[in-house]
């Protein structure tokens, strides 16, 4: 448990750096985790070269999903959309630095799912994430 709720996660959960909304934005997507009713929205602004200049998330959910959103959104600023498309489950888990069972994995990956869905469209990413 100390692993699961290590300080960094509690900190990102209690004091998120990236919480907010961007209006207007270039990309935006929101989705739920049906398992717990968590909800997440991610907004992105992108420059002419396809590089993310600003990013924000909003929503509510557990420490894992919120900290993962905060860490992930923070990490994509400065990346290109193409680079975002390459992000994998392992990248998110590395950001979190913890191991997760199958149910909590969904919490952790909700942010990646929402981010990629915003960038590409939902159909394509479902495959990829499982």
């Amino acid at each position, binding site marked *: *448990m100390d692993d699961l*709720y290590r300080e960094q996660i509690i900190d990102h959960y209690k004091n998120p750096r990236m919480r907010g909304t961007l209006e207007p934005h270039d990309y935006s997507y929101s989705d739920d985790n049906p398992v*717990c009713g968590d909800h997440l929205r991610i907004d992105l602004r992108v420059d002419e070269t396809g590089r993310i200049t600003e990013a924000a998330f909003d929503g*509510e959910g557990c*420490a894992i999903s919120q900290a993962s959103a905060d860490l992930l959104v923070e990490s994509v600023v400065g990346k290109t959309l193409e680079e975002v498309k390459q992000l994998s489950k392992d990248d998110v888990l590395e950001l979190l630095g913890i191991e997760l069972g199958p149910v909590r994995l969904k919490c952790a990956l909700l942010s990646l799912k929402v981010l990629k869905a915003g960038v590409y469209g939902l159909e394509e990413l479902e495959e990829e994430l499982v």
Partner: protein
Amino acid sequence: MKPTTTVLDVARIRESFPILQREVSPGVPLVYLDSAATSQRPVQVMQAIDEFYRKHNANIHRGVHRLAEEATEAYEAARGRIADFIGAASPREIVFVRNTTEAINLVARTWGEVNLGAGDVVLLTEMEHHSNLVPWQMLAAKLGFRLEFVPVDEQGLLDMDAYKELLGHGPKLVGFTHMSNVTGTINPAAEMTAMAHAAGAVVLVDGAQSVPHMPVDVQQIDADFLAFSGHKMLGPTGVGALYGRQELLEAMPPFLGGGDMIKRVSLEGFSTNEVPYKFEAGTPAIAEAVGLGAAVDFLSEIGMAAVHAHEQVMIAYALERLEEVPGLRVFGPAPELKGAVASFTFPGAHPHDIAQILDSVGVAVRAGHHCAMPLHQKFNIPATTRASFYIYNRIDEVDRLIEGLYKVREYFG
């Protein structure tokens, strides 16, 4: 005040549940407080299944060989025991299904399909499990009838004045849960069916939480349909039952088509078999029905009144202790109005995180909407953490839960 004992010999009961000896991680014994999701199974149930497979396994009904006869007898004997357990007038009133969900869908797709239409009303409550809501939403979208809902107050009790008023709209069917799986609220079933019958409605009772935890007699509560799941009452997964009054069952069209539910088939058409077989298409969950029969025997031996009395002691103590935890908010009415289910929220901590931290100290609870999103919407919360108790839970397991909650406070307080 901490009770020192309850009406049940819990230590002895626990001997039948090997999983309760398990450690969740080295040195951390399991405290299983998730029986509202699914109960554990006693060895008596596992042995009944095992013995069926080792000695009597065969397909039923259509066989004349020894094993087929034994298997048929075992399956039908289980039906009889389940009929007795809930006070049905005849085993023919028991249809084996997979679970409560299938039972309710069966009623919707058969009774509902021929009795409901545009302009009709089906009256449910705001505290229904999705199983007693979504099937009616699906059917309403197709047939054009209207759904109405008895409101729930902040205590988690049905508004009985509103119920009376809504009955005035002349619903054709009233469906309500006997016991809420979120607040534990026990609805006054006999009173509600009497009122519904007086208003001319057919009544479906969702017994998923009541049948496992208290005496339920279909004739006493006068339900037309009662749905319940084996896996919540010490039985195996994969089997449940629908009770239906015989004349209703007889008048209903069949549910799924296939083997066993027919009398005669030609390429042009078919005629249906007698009840309850009309509703049991294909090879049923034979070993599971036998296992459920053994579960019913196990519960009957303890006595459902004793089960309920034990749980009353458990929940009263649990609520008392939960109230000590600063900030914790418990949903649902006073202990004497509910079953042994406590759902709560804790400021600053998501229900999932609470459950996870409790898990780390061995306490298994559930977090989420518990398949009752509308009730959570009513309470204006996305999710709760739920602890639920059964015959094998000890008083001191409540203390383990409370200790875990203090740990949650350390992290998230």
